[in-house]
Every structure is written in C-alpha cells, then in structure tokens.
C-alpha cells in the first residue's frame, strides 16, 4: 500500500555495552542478518565513530564511508552499502578519529544522517562505541530502544549496569533490553539479567515514577563456531547457520521484533 510506504519509519535500536570486547559488533552484524531473514529491511549504522570495525567483521572494503558524507565528498546514497547478507550498512571508516569527540558539527551530521535513513528502512541498528562517552550517550539518545550486550564477566556486568543507570537517569529510559553473550551454561543469561534487575530495583528505580524494566532478549553460548566465523571473516549466520550460537542469535532477533 502506498500509504504504508509513505509512513514507513524505521525502528531505531541502539546496541551498546559499556565495556568493549563483548561481541557487540559481531552481534550487531548477525542480528541484522537474522532480522533481514525475518523480512525486515535493515541498516546497520556503524556509530563507533572513533574505532569502527564493522567493516572488519563483515570483510568489506568500502570506498565510501560516513566520513565522506560528513565532509561532503559523497552523498549518503553512495555511502549506503548493500551487503551480500541481505542488509545494508553505513560504515564509519577508520578516518573518523576526529569524530570521536562530540562537536556540534558531529551531532548535527549524525542527526541529519539518521533522519535521512529512517524513512527507507524497517530497522536501523546503531552499533555504538564502547564506554559511556558523550558520543555513545548521544548516539543512544537518537534511538527508539536500547539493547545492552553483556557477558558474564564481572567487568562487563559492572559496565552494563553503569550504562543502564546512566540511560535510566539521564535519558529517562525505562525499558532496556539485555542480550547476554558468551554464556557457558544455559540459563546463565537469565540469571545475569536477574542480577542486573535486582540491583536496578534497589539502586536506580526507587523514586522514579516508573521503574526501570530490563527485558531479557536472549543468551548466546560460547561456541567454537563463532571463532571460526570471525577468523574466516564471515557472518556466523551465513557460514554456520546451524551452530548453537547462530540459533541463539536468530531467537534473539525474533524477540527483538516482538
């Protein structure tokens, strides 16, 4: 229907973690693939402006990046890259170090880019940088919903909790989704979400009119298939779709659409 098309507006999901190295970019790419398989038109926007590596994960060598759009060298259309995996990407490019500080120009550029892509997709995954820097917080503030990626490691959990706290108090986020990566036992992800929720209930929600709710989106097990896919620089869902980790990502994507 034409009206449905005209009203198209992508759901923007920010994927963030607090701590780096928890598999955020790997999961962003594979979730995008799973969502695309489930019929969504997906764009992954590499918002890790300082240290982008989505291109590495996807084994892509983009000639035109967000950097070229920001500098006015190329148009946004030229920078949106269709991957062989059924979704599109907008890569930051490694020349973006100068954007790791949030200047008014960077903010305006980012908003302009997001506003332009929103009517063209069903879903935009914002792969943010690690940490709780102002760039990350700003990027997250552009999203409709937030997905926190954590691992069972105490450092990751602490940073995930800090991120939740900051998002709840400074952005008024009340529903935050949690995906636990690298679990060693089934059920560990749910326990982790429970732990986070318990601390949030005790230290963050009191006094807020609406308490902060953490929604469990899934857990991805430690799986040799992941290492294999990363080494080959292929998407896990593409090269080892039957692996436990791939199945977990597909399940998480399904919950993300709910």
């Amino acid at each position: 229907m034409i009206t449905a098309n005209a009203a198209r507006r992508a759901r923007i999901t920010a994927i963030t973690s607090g701590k780096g190295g928890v598999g955020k970019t790997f999961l962003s790419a594979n979730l995008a693939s799973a969502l695309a398989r489930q019929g969504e038109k997906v764009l992954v926007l590499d918002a890790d402006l300082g240290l982008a590596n989505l291109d590495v994960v996807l084994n892509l060598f983009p000639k035109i990046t967000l950097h070229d759009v920001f500098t006015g060298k190329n148009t946004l259309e030229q920078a949106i890259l269709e991957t062989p995996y059924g979704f599109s990407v907008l890569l930051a490019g490694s020349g973006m170090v100068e954007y790791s500080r949030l200047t008014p120009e960077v903010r305006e550029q980012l908003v302009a880019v997001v506003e332009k892509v929103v009517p063209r997709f069903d879903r935009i995954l914002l792969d943010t940088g690690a940490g709780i820097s102002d760039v990350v917080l700003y990027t997250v503030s552009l999203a409709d919903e937030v997905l926190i990626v954590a691992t069972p490691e105490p450092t990751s959990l602490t940073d995930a909790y800090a991120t939740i706290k900051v998002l709840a108090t400074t952005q008024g986020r009340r529903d935050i989704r949690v995906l636990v990566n690298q679990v060693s036992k089934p059920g560990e992800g749910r326990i982790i979400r429970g732990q986070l929720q318990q601390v949030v209930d005790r230290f963050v929600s009191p006094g807020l009119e609406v308490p902060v709710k953490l929604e469990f989106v899934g857990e991805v097990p430690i799986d040799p298939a992941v290492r294999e896919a990363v080494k080959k620089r292929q998407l896990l869902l593409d090269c080892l779709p039957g692996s436990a980790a791939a199945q977990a990502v597909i399940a998480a994507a399904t919950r993300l659409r709910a």
Partner: protein
Amino acid sequence: MNSKPSFLQPTALDALRLEQAMSLLTQSGQGQLTGAEGSTPWLQSLIDALCDLSSRDGLTGLANRRNFENAIARESDRVARSGEPALLLMLDIDHFKRINDHHGHVAGDLVIKAVADALNATVRPMDLVARIGGEEFAIILPNCPPAFGAAVAERIRARVEGQGIPLLSGQQMGCTISIGGAYAPQWVRSTPAVWMERADLQLYRAKSEGRNRTCLEPTPVSVVSAEEKGLLFASSIFGEDLS
C-alpha cells in the same frame, strides 16, 4: 518607520472588548500603558502587560508554572545543543502545613512571599525563579558549572533559614526549605519531564534525610558503588570469578 503613532481603525478598536483586561491590569498594578489610547503602541503595551500578568504568580510575582514549563523546555533544548551545564533546583518549604495550621493562611502567604524574596535575592539575574505549586518553587540556573552547584544551593538554603519573617501580630517566625537539584543531560536529547523528575528525586531525598538540607544528584551517575557491586555479584555464578 512611521514617525506618527499609527491608530487602529476606530471600528476595529470598537470591536474589541478590553474592559476586563484593563480591570485585571489595574488590579495587579500594571494599568500604566504607554502611548495614546487606541494607538498601536498602546495596544502592544496592553498585550505585553497581559502576557506578563499571565506568566507571573499573583502572590509572589515570581514566574508561574506555565512560564516555568516554557523556560525549562527551552533550556533543555539549549543544553542539548550547547552542552552548557545547567542546574535545576526544586525547593519546598519544610512543614508548610504546620505553619498554616498554627499561624493561619495569612501567615502562610507571608512565609511564601518571604521565601520568594530570599530566592530572588540569592540568584543571578539570568536565573529563573518560579513558584510551581503551593509551597513549591523551582530555579533554573543556566550555565552553572557543576563545581558550583552545591554551593549555590546551600547559599539559598542558608539564606532562607537565616531570615526572620515578621508576622502581622508583630511576632517573628522562621522557616526552612529543602532543595533537590540535577544537571541537565549535556549534548543529549532528553525531555524536561526527565530533568524535573531527577531534581524531584533529590528533593525527596533531602526531605527524607531530615529536611532543611540540599541534595544534588551525584555526578557522574556512571560510578558504580561497592554496595551496588556487592549485590550485582551476589550470585553463585560469580563464585569462581571473584574468589
């Protein structure tokens, strides 16, 4: 520019019913309008006076709630763009009901006025002081560095505590206030409602910790305390990691 004052068409002026507006302005002491009656400058000054009247609290002359909501929306937009630190203070007169019950509503009004005057006397001209409820006030302090926030709030609290309020009976009475404060999220798009809720939360804290005190949201909120960590890892799955 027109050197002569322009007049509205007599028919247009006749069609306006200005009696009620005029009586409202006269009653509030703002009946002095500029320009010749019926001229455009005169009508403009009438409109300005009405705008001013509708943005002020009748009892204290402070900004009213409507004006405050307008200002906080503007300030929160401005901070999101400029990244300037802006502080919001929410204040509440301690045990105001008791004052009303013991000394009567006239005394209650005097206390509210005295607090309003004290607030006005302690802030900068650029700050907006508003009465947003019965005994509730709010102050927006644009460009207030985080290092100064606590001192500013404390100065306001101390000023109110230190002043004697003469009652009609010739008695003097005192009152105290509790203050909660939070800084606007810099660079980030947020809503005034969230900002107010954060400051309110601190006001609630100040009340529950015994009143007559100031509580500002601790910055940065990203710091995780030992207590929080303790609870976070209070699960058997972390047994090995933390030993």
